[in-house]
């Protein structure tokens, strides 16, 4: 799986032909792959008990934050990375304001459910009832952002998306309706009881993590099907050469809007889960840094590859949480989390510029673009 593989005499176009774990996986018949995928999913559900593994377990789990909460954090970061991967990785649209959709999902939930909401006397819904409305709102937000930016490319698009997220944050900070820093309290948790006990309580984060995992698995299946359909083919063509795609008869505007609204939908899922777990949101959660962090996760993991996005999303949440509560010579490493994190990202990007689990096509595109910059 080295980068040089594409430069050799007979380049491999499919990971199926190559060595390494992915090469092996790709060559297996369908049922083997299904079993492996199921086993991986089952192991993911057991992650809260990693600490019980002798020797390695205690090294892996977080110290400054309880492990199930760290896992839940990872789950919504992974969701965001998966959603951003659709926009950036598949369709090739650089979105620097992705947190905006996360915010719309969370605020959508809050305003329909919290007792602090101006709508409370009319709505005051349960969490589950608010979810579809909040998600519809995020998809709409995706279209609203997508529509005027259809003609923009590259840097210009990035700046407009950045502005979009800032508008949402500033509106949330400065309007009465969205309550700024005071935020919304008492957002209800997801429903359900088990043996007479509430499943989604305040003290135990494990059920939230599991819920996040279920949503992630559903998203993986949905995105995978889209990627293999005509929609995915259209995104790929747009990403590789938008003008050529248009000449082939791809209705580029339509598929770019699709990418924005599907990406927004997945980000919104992260938002409603976040609001449902925290029970409280305010405007200081949805800062620009958040968008950049998720983008860093996608790029670090391997833009355009779902496995990469999942790994990257998990790492951007795990690394800082793992540093929490560790002190070296009297200073808490958590305070230096972003500095250390930055170093880690730089090292990864030097060693593996296409990401930890790169997309083979993306690797090819990068090479192609390098040629344009410095012709032979």
């Amino acid at each position: 799986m080295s980068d040089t593989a594409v430069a050799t005499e007979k380049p491999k176009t499919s990971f199926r032909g190559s060595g390494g774990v992915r090469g092996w996986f790709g060559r297996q018949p369908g049922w083997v792959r299904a079993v492996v995928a199921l086993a991986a999913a089952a192991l993911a559900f057991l992650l809260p008990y990693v600490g019980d593994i002798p020797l390695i377990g205690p090294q892996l789990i977080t110290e400054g934050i309880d492990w199930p909460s760290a896992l839940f954090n990872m789950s919504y970061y992974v969701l965001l990375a998966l959603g951003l991967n659709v926009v950036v990785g598949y369709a090739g649209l650089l979105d620097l304001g992705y947190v905006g959709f996360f915010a719309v999902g969370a605020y959508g939930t809050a305003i329909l459910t919290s007792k602090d909401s101006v709508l409370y006397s009319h709505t005051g819904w349960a969490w589950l009832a608010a979810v579809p409305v909040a998600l519809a709102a995020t998809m709409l937000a995706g279209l609203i952002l997508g529509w005027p930016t259809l003609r923009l490319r590259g840097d210009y698009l990035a700046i407009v998306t950045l502005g979009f997220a800032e508008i949402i944050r500033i509106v949330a900070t400065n309007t009465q309706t969205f309550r700024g820093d005071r935020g919304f309290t008492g957002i209800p948790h997801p429903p359900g009881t088990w043996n007479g006990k509430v499943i989604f309580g305040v003290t135990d984060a494990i059920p939230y993590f599991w819920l996040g995992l279920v949503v992630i698995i559903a998203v993986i299946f949905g995105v995978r099907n889209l990627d293999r359909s005509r929609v995915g083919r259209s995104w790929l063509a747009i990403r590789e050469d938008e003008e050529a795609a248009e000449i082939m008869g791809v209705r580029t505007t339509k598929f770019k809007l699709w990418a924005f609204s599907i990406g927004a939908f997945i980000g919104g899922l992260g938002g409603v889960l976040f609001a449902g777990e925290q029970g409280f949101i305010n405007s200081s959660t949805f800062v620009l840094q958040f968008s950049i962090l998720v983008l860093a996760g996608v790029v670090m993991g391997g833009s355009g590859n779902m496995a990469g996005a999942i790994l990257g999303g998990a790492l951007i949440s795990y690394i800082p949480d793992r540093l929490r509560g560790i002190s070296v010579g009297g200073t808490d490493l958590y305070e230096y989390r972003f500095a250390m994190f930055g170093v880690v990202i730089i090292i990864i990007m030097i060693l593996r510029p296409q990401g930890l689990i790169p997309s083979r096509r993306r690797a090819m595109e990068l090479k192609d673009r390098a040629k344009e910059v410095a012709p032979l």
Partner: protein
Amino acid sequence: MLLELEKISLAYGRIEALHGISLTVGQGEVVALIGANGAGKSTTMRAISGLRPLSSGAIRFDGQDITRLRADLRVVRGVSQSPEGRGIFPGMSVRENLEMGAYTRRNRAEIDEDLDRAFGLFPRLKEREKQSGGTLSGGEQQMLAVGRALMSRPKLLLLDEPSMGLAPMLIQQIFDIIVEINQQGTTILLVEQNAQQALSRAHRAYVLETGRIVKEGTGAELLHDPAVKDAYLGVA
């Protein structure tokens, strides 16, 4: 007439690149559009494909006005382009690139037939079928661009600089294939800097200078025109 441009003008921002160009391409013809760098050749192609809107004028194709028709629908009507710089999808394999050319079509059997036809025209592409488009040589990419443009079963094939960056041997070969494609029944509008080749292969040609058509005639006429010889064919 299969294609008719009537006084089309097109501007990039405030700069007008085409000043009222009129030209026609008849059914079954090979028409060449020659001119220097920046004369507006590629811009004309982009206008026909619908990549840029016109500021005035009209485009008629196959008897219908397509001036305001979306680019993707023009492909469905039968306009196909092999763009300047080839526009190969670098991460897609040769086969996937060709399949992309058939994006607007659904009939699997017909698409497979056309794949065979493209591989027949360019046996080299068959050898490279599974290789990424980005790893091909310039000549192979050019073949792929032309083959891909054919995959939509166009009535009109637009070829933008098919000889650009190719070795002399390959230039001969690609023009031979262009003529072959035309003889199989596809009308061709060709943009070229290699005026010698273009004029000797085309039925008719137009000379474009700074966004205007300054001359037109049969290929043979222009090939022997002193002014054209002087400006585009190099003095022997």
